[in-house]
């Protein structure tokens, strides 16, 4: 991939339009980013994208911003990170500046509410599609540990309302122990 002006412009337009059209914050933008960067543009591989999202979630700050920084950095270093953060931060700045001026007029406008109601259904469809794909990818690999982590963390988040950051930390530590052989090293030292 050539890092010319056209590439940076494309990166900017991509992050700008993702941020400008996704109602509902970080967890909506992230699946859309995955779809855009992995499936449409094919700039990043599926597994690496999940790594990027995982790292972005373990840092503080808006997840959409963090993910766009990571993605931009992966594609084109620090300059890429700044281009994509600019693309992500500009739409809210523009839209909210405009909306807060007309808020009282917009709040009770039935046409605006009708469009929003429809768009919510569209957003839900997009998310469902992405979730089906992502869960399918995990199941296809038939790695029992991954499946158990997925089910337990889902229950932790949905049923027990445990904080996302805490789930991330626990799964990270668990993964380090299970996969990297730390457990075996530890056992070895005791023998």
């Amino acid at each position, binding site marked *: 991939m050539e890092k010319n002006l056209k590439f940076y412009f494309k990166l900017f337009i991509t992050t700008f339009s993702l941020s400008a059209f996704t109602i509902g914050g970080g*967890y909506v933008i992230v699946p859309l980013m995955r779809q855009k960067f992995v499936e449409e543009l094919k700039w990043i591989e599926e597994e690496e994208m999940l790594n990027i999202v995982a790292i972005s979630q373990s840092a503080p700050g808006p997840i959409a911003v963090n993910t766009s920084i*990571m993605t931009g950095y992966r594609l084109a270093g620090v300059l890429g990170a700044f281009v994509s953060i600019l693309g992500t931060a500009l739409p809210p700045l523009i839209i909210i500046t405009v909306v807060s001026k007309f808020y009282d007029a917009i709040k009770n406008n039935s046409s605006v509410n009708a469009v929003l*109601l429809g768009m919510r259904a569209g957003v839900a469809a997009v998310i469902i599609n992405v979730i089906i794909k992502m869960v399918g990818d995990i199941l296809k690999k038939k790695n029992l540990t991954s499946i158990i982590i*997925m089910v337990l963390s889902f229950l932790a988040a949905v049923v027990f309302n445990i904080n996302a950051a805490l789930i991330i930390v626990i799964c990270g530590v668990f993964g380090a122990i299970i996969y990297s052989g730390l457990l075996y090293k530890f056992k070895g030292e005791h023998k």
Partner: protein
Amino acid sequence: MTYLQIFVSFFQIGLFSFGGGYAALPLIENQVIDVHKWLSLAEFADLITISQMTPGPIALNAATFVGTRVGGLLGAIVATIGCITPSCIIVLMLAYLYYKYKNLSTIQGVLNGLRPAVVSLIASAGISILALALFKTEVTTLLNVKFSDINIVSLILIVIGVFVLKKYKSNPIHVIMASGVVGFIIYALIL
């Protein structure tokens, strides 16, 4: 001095909000209402409504909204920059470390543990978004949902949306926009 205060406040919000938008709300409430008295409680409720109906990360929406109220356009820009500065520093450091050490077995182990958890977190957020789109009233628990609470138009839109996305691999942004148009036609013109 006000601009410096705005910057410092949103820097703190960016720095201490782990786990995305909704985790940032209590921090924003604390800074904006309790510490600086920039907004009243009613204005804060408006801010949440606006954030939910406009695209983009909630923390950035809040930054622009509060910044505009306190210091006009410059205030909005200062607040946004304050909010994303911690992310820029921390995520760029993590990105640098990740791409430098990603072949270490411990890092790979951590990421192997995180990937399924990320899928679950996105799925759990997806359920809330689905519930918001699907039910007429605010649904707090899925246990006492009545069939009559389901918004049939939304349900149909979601099913068609998922089908179109799966079958034709349509651009998600087009699907969201088309849903908005259909929503406008059905809710504003027909019903």
